[in-house]
């Protein structure tokens, strides 16, 4: 299941001062530049907002929505535009629209939370290791190598088996995929920042290591991790689909897009829409996240 995390950009340190305009731009001028955001931000932002709104708020607002898991078997496999079921029903008679909405919620939750965990744990690990350097860094990085080296399949199996399948455990399992990535990213960024003059200056100003890490390094590493994590959400959702395929995904009571896709693949020759519809949603979301990530990256100058 080769789910590729998106490109970890080719970190060439973008020097914020390299923008020739920055040297001469004055305060208000820059502010106005910030306001003039391009469509690179607004369009994906809006679509994403709508998706999130639909997934999270719609089921609350519109209570008559059929349940995503309690459909009637008598209404199985209805074609799209059937009365009451805009996109039809799945082989168990569940309304596809409401499964999409719920699935989006679960997928986004899995994607976002596993990212947050990877970002927090991996990020702080990498940051701390790189900042302290020496044997601590060596040991941490070797440990992370270990995490990469041993088959994640075993790990995911253990997590999802031993802890029984649940959304939370899937989240944990997927987080393990992202922790080394985030740690490496954070480490690289920190190594660059560590040599930054302002870090040296802070130390000369008498600042403690902890404070430097927390107040100088972290705020500057975070944007990079954040833009990257936007791209990683996509990978996390796709990994969840693969886990579902192997039977280690979220439980059936909480359908996700990934689960819909992996369930739908059995029907791909006769009912391709079962795969296509959730795939399209996933695609749209991922495109929006990517575009948003790219736009943010371009704006913050993060690599």
């Amino acid at each position: 299941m080769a789910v590729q995390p998106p490109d970890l950009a080719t970190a060439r340190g973008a020097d914020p001062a390299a923008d020739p305009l920055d040297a001469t731009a004055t305060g208000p001028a820059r502010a106005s530049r910030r306001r003039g955001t391009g469509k690179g931000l607004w369009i994906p932002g809006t679509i994403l907002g709508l998706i999130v709104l639909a997934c999270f708020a719609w089921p609350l607002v519109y209570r008559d929505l059929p349940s995503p898991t309690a459909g009637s078997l008598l209404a199985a496999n209805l074609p799209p535009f059937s009365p009451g079921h805009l996109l039809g029903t799945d082989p168990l008679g569940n309304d596809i629209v409401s499964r999409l909405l719920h699935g989006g919620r679960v997928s986004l939750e899995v994607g976002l939370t596993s990212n947050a965990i990877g970002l927090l744990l991996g990020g702080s690990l990498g940051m701390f290791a790189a900042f302290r350097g020496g044997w601590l860094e060596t040991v941490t990085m070797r440990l992370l190598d270990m995490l990469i080296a041993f088959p994640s399949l075993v790990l995911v199996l253990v997590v999802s088996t031993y802890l029984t399948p649940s959304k939370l455990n899937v989240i944990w399992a997927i987080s393990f995929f992202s922790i080394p990535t985030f740690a490496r990213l954070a480490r690289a960024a920190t190594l660059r920042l560590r040599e930054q003059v302002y870090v040296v200056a802070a130390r000369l100003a008498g600042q403690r290591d902890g404070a430097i890490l927390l107040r100088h390094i972290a705020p500057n590493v975070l944007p990079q991790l954040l833009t990257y994590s936007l791209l990683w959400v996509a990978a996390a959702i796709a990994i969840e689909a693969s886990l579902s395929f192997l039977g280690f995904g979220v439980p059936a009571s909480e359908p996700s897009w990934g689960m819909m896709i992996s369930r739908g693949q059995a029907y791909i020759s006769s009912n391709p829409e079962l795969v296509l519809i959730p795939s399209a949603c996933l695609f749209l979301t991922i495109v929006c996240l990517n575009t948003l990530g790219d736009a943010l990256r371009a704006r913050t100058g993060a690599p």
Partner: protein
Amino acid sequence: MTTQIQPDTATRTADPDAPLLTIENLEVTFRTRDALVHAVRGVDLTVHAGQTLAVIGESGSGKTVTSRAVMGLLPRTATVRGSIRLGERQMVGLGEKELRRCLGREVGMIFQDPARSLNPTMRIGNQLTEAIRVHLPMSRRQARERAVELLAMVRLPAPARRFHEYPHQLSGGMRQRVMIAIALACQPGLLIADEATTALDVTTQAQIMDLLLDLQQRFAMGLVLISHDMGLAASYADQVAVMYAGRVVERAPTRRMIAHVRMPYTRALLDATPRLERPPHAPLPVISGRPPDLRVLDPGCAFAPRCSRSQDRCQHERPELTEREPRHEWACFFPCADDSLPGEDER
């Protein structure tokens, strides 16, 4: 040297007095996310064969943009208007193919940071032969021989061995020599050196400048030296053009310019330059303020807000660059007089 490098006579104009490069009313604007940046706002310059023109001015005054406009190397966001004639050829609006034929053959360029200007993963020999073979129908071996000659010409020790080395194996000064060899590979009539020595040590700088002037003389090239450094300009250039906020504000032969500064901005630059003649701890005469916002096109003189001599007129009317004394052009309504020569009292 076995074969003499032949100047590419075809590109030289028949009339030796005709300028090599003529820039007229050059305007360059950049589209940025929210505004147009008017980086160059009507520059006029001429360079003759065998002449060295120094372009100086503070950071952001448009020196680099002007030179890149000549080379057609501006990013896609730039719009170029006006006229740049290289010999007979109009460079503005030139198609990519013709432009490529010009670059390296009729005009060469060297940049500020020799460490970054050379491709780190290519042997310098290959980078050099590439420059030759793009324009001249030479076999690999001929090109290679010529490349070694070029390396010898820029006084790189052991040129045949260096041919096979990578940029990181050379010192900064040597890299800049290689850059010069690359720029001169096809004997261009005009060489633009954009802060070519800023990143180098003083001793290396002196060597590189020596080399440049020597080669310029030998091949009767036109040389444009772009720099911040008044000292460099004064030491090596025949003519100096001072730029401010996208315009040339004063231009004259070097000696005349230093001796008879007219433009208050030039005066300020000269005064602010530290020099050996000054005693320690003597305060430098400075002007306050900063260059104007290039996104705004003001009607008046761009320097007026910082100028001690400015008057009402300067706010509303822009002085044109005109030849007000023989071979000395400036753009100011209230020029400085000849009195306060810098450092004269100390000498």
